């Protein structure tokens, strides 16, 4: 008998107390001002939250960030934000090791925990989200859900792909519980909320 069959047979023999799968609906946490809650949670986990009127205002807002001024190589998935230096070749992710800043559109944000849902199709290669020295995410302010239940209600996973709830920069507290920002991945995460929270605000476009 092969391992697969052996495992399944053993599991079928086990008598397990049967419990119904609970209904995912519930009276879950909501926020009067999801943007404010999101910003507060993101700051509390070491990220930064900024608000701009629209994507056209991003270049000026970004120019004010110290990491932007010092960056030699910037890659951007947003048409409104020009990159700096070599673009990233999706076939050669290792060559992205010296990217200083990656600017990536996020799909939506979660107020409850300060997370942004980001997918690999928004970026030249998914490793940029983790390998760049600094990451900037751009999310329409109208695209903030209250909690993780609402987040999953928006998601479907019927095709191959990668997505990540990103909440703050890479960090660790593995040495004596002392929090250090910038473990192996991004040293900073800045989320720009665009628009006034009106859900008719257009989504950020991905550069061709």
């Amino acid at each position, binding site marked *: 008998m*092969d*391992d*697969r069959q*052996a*495992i*399944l047979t*053993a*599991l079928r*023999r*086990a008598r*397990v*107390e*049967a*419990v*119904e*799968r*609970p209904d*995912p609906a*519930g*009276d879950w*946490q909501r926020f009067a001002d999801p943007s404010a809650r999101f910003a507060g*949670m993101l700051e509390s*986990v070491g990220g930064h939250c900024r608000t701009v009127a629209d994507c056209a205002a991003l270049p000026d807002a970004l120019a004010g960030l110290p990491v932007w001024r010092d960056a030699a190589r910037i890659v951007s998935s947003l048409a409104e934000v020009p990159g700096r230096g070599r673009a990233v070749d999706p076939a050669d992710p*290792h060559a992205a*090791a010296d990217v200083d800043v990656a600017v990536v559109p996020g799909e939506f944000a979660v107020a409850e*925990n*300060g997370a942004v849902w980001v997918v690999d199709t928004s970026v030249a290669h*998914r*490793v940029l*989200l*983790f*390998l760049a020295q600094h990451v900037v995410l751009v999310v329409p302010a109208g695209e903030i859900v209250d*909690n*993780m*239940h609402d987040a*999953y*209600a928006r*998601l*479907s*996973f019927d095709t*191959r*792909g*990668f997505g*990540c*709830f990103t*909440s703050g920069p*890479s*960090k*660790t*507290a*593995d*040495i*004596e*519980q*002392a929090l*250090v920002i*910038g*473990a*192996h*991945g991004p040293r900073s995460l800045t989320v720009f909320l665009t628009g006034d929270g009106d859900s008719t605000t257009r989504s950020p476009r991905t550069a061709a």
Partner: protein
Amino acid sequence: VTHPARAAAFVRDEERAHWHDRALWFVRAKRDRAAAEVPEWEELRERAAMIKQHTLSRLPEYLETFEERATALGAVVHWASDARRHNEIVLEILRSRQVRRVAKSKSMLTEECGLNEHLEANGIEVTDTDLGERIVQMRHEPPSHIVLPAIHIRKEEVGELFHRELGTPEGLADPTSLTEAARQHLREKFLSAEAGITGVNFAIAETGGFVVCTNEGNADLGASLPKLHVACMGIEKLVPRAEDLAPLLRLLARSATGQPITSYTSHFHGPIEGGELHIVLVDNGRSELLASAEFQRSLRCIRCGACMNTCPVYRRSGGHSYDAVVPGPIGSILSPARDEARHASLPYACTLCGSCTDVCPVKIDLHQQLQAWRGRLTERGKVPAARRVAMRLGSAVLRRPRLYALASRMAQLFGMRWAALAGSGRAWARGRAIPGAARRSFRQQFRERRDG
């Protein structure tokens, strides 16, 4: 060697033992604050327990669905009955692709299987990329905690280690500088790895995908740079549908470290563009545990570590005193199931205070299962003779009211120390003052009040 013997070695350094206790209590306090911030916390625990229990009750069908969906997405699914098979499968995948260097992220399953040793013995360099795991790997010791692998190590010791291994300046003990040194070292390892091995926090039957949670982003770096990703998971990691992750993810990081969510909660569905994804499903004793009516609920565990952080015995004896891959309360249930003789002392590394049960996000009745283990070990004669005799003596006295009255009278006359000297009571008397017996017993007082 038993838990008390190992714990004795740990507590000999009193200053360190207190420091360890405080460090973990700090994490426990963070967990409490995070839990209190969520109004529906208890409802989430209820749902999470139901989701996991439901999944366990239909595990074969969910595993088959997962396999089918994952395969349709382009992943290759492997099944391993035990640790040996798991290690063979992973080695074969790596070998057939001429992989020499692997970046690995945290996986208690691969610890359990001894994967690193197996790969290293076959000439493959494995770098643990979680900072805490890298530290213990460099020290050639196992993690002492499932979430905080290096919680037992002082920053000065990390400084000495990094001075030796990474060439940091002598005497450097500042966590920020040490982490920066590890960053440079590990980024090099990521860039030179030819394969990434990750664990799995949750796998989704309906979608064929899985979720990995890290704060460092190390799993993502390891699994995104090379073309080959091997994900190793215990068969209990499944949930039926993606939406079932909502309660579990809301609980996991808050229970573990008091964070609202980990920095990165990555959802992998199929291999990376032009790459390969292998998923190894491992039993290694889990189907046996599932067949046990008493202990099957322990398979709900999502490895948050909250039971360790709150456990008065764990905090004061250190993870290594358990001599088990998973220490603390949950480890003391899982380990004897794996090797009863070797881990027979673990269910006794517990005061039955029940704090673990109170914090468990998936509502495992930990302290009750630990008590059940004691019963089983006693039945099977796996308990030291002195304790058996003491227990029999205790039971004989407690069952006979007159004898009990006599015994408590003796304690009043001769002091409690007399009682504490007998049998297993001795371990409890060590290192603490035994309070004197009340001058008037409960029975005497009761009689006086009733009659007076």
